[in-house]
């Protein structure tokens, strides 16, 4: 990895965290994601993926260590700007789409930033166009298909013009067509993407680079193709490719 010239989109240093009940979930996470990269964060259930994600926009506050987004450290006084820079897409789009119409939902984020009027309209239209759904603005979210709802959820954070897009299990519950459509949308975006998933083929399809989070630390960091070809590494962290799936050009 050559270090990027400008500050990286995301830089996490020695991040440790324990829940109030004493359970420690993160044990010193170190990772850097350069501007424009698309990175997959892989890991078994209970590895601390969601806990890590909650630190990226300051919903949880680090017990130890730092998180920086494009050079800005996450802290109490920077929360507003941090939440603009980090766009979090939740696993269940119904949690994310809480307003009566798609348009109001997409506008919610930028409106909280003080954007109003024509500029707000423009942002909404632009975000919906980027996810390929320019015509759904006036529909209520619950009238959309599940795949459409997930793309609208992506639009709600794109409207905030984030530095980095963080997706939690983006492919879960999608039918094959919706899965492909979402992949096309993600590939067309010019923002940094961190994708939290255990859908290994999807990671391979979309991300050059992958990290494995296991036991609260980063256990592996490298090109997705190489990581997925390492059977021993995958097995050690309870990750499995689907039956019959083989990574091409496997180095032997």
């Amino acid at each position: 990895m050559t270090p990027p010239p400008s500050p990286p989109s995301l830089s996490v240093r020695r991040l440790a965290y324990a829940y109030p009940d004493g359970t420690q979930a993160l044990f010193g996470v170190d990772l850097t994601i350069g501007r424009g990269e698309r990175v997959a964060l892989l890991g078994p259930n209970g590895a601390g993926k969601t806990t890590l994600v909650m630190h990226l926009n300051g919903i949880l506050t680090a017990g130890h260590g730092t998180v920086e987004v494009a050079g800005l450290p996450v802290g109490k006084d920077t929360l507003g700007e941090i939440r603009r820079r980090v766009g979090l897409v939740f696993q269940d789009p119904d949690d994310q789409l809480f307003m009566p119409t798609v348009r109001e939902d997409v506008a919610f984020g930028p409106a909280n930033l003080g954007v109003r009027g024509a500029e707000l309209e423009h942002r909404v239209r632009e975000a919906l166009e980027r996810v390929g759904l320019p015509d759904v603005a006036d529909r209520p979210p619950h009238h959309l298909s599940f795949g459409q709802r997930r793309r609208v959820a992506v639009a709600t954070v794109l409207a905030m013009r984030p530095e980095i897009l963080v997706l939690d299990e983006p492919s879960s519950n999608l039918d094959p067509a919706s899965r492909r459509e979402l992949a096309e949308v993600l590939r067309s975006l010019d923002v940094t993407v961190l994708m939290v998933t255990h859908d290994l083929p999807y990671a391979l399809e979309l991300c050059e680079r992958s990290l494995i989070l296991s036991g609260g630390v980063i256990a592996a960091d490298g090109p997705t193709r190489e990581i997925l070809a390492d059977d021993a590494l995958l097995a050690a962290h309870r990750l499995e490719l689907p039956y019959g799936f083989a990574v091409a050009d496997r180095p032997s």
Partner: protein
Amino acid sequence: MGAGHHHQLYRPGDTVVHRLPPQCKLPAVAAFAVVVVATPRDAFWAFGVYALLLAGVAAAARVPARFVLRRMVVEVPFVVFALALPVIGLGARVEVLGVSLSVEGLWAAWNILAKATLGVVASILLAATTEPRMMLLGARRLRLPQTLVQIAMFMLRYMDVILDEMRRMRVARESRGFAARDVRQLPVLAKSAGALFIRSYERGERVHLAMLSRGYNGSMPIIDDVGASAASWAVAAVLPVAALATAALSWSLS
């Protein structure tokens, strides 16, 4: 109570009634209901005028009678109650078809049926011509407490989601041979209710996180707004003013 499909309550259209700003329609309907309730029950003709007024609104909004009648089933429990009044009522009695009925009871039954029916029809027309979210916008324009309007907004948004969860739980129960026959099955139903509460509560927490993630700082931004011209107010006032004139006449006559 009409299932969870609140979108079926609304009949999309582009009529003068549909186009009226919600902040004009809401007080108009509420005022109409107050005037109806304040009308003396022996002014039969006044209730006829009210019914004609509502029929006029329905015609202008192109809401078919069939739609209104079907939705009027919510009234049924009180029709039953009202019909019982002449039988159990006190005071002087008359013989009708061999049944001894209370005169006061008959009056009371008429009073409740007439006023409740007019109120229900007015509400049905309001819901049929106003999108739920417009209703919320109108409530906000009318300066109803912000928090209350927002609670209603979240409730309307997640009503179907939660009813769906409840339906899935029922299917899961019934596909394992469960049927609620008597009190002994209550614990099973209560477990479902408990699970439903936990899911609702946890979803509430996740929604709150999703809001925080997009810069929510305790107050909802005003994204959409609808203005109301003096003309809109005047149009909306036709219904309650006509009703008030009718009522005023009935008071002076009684």
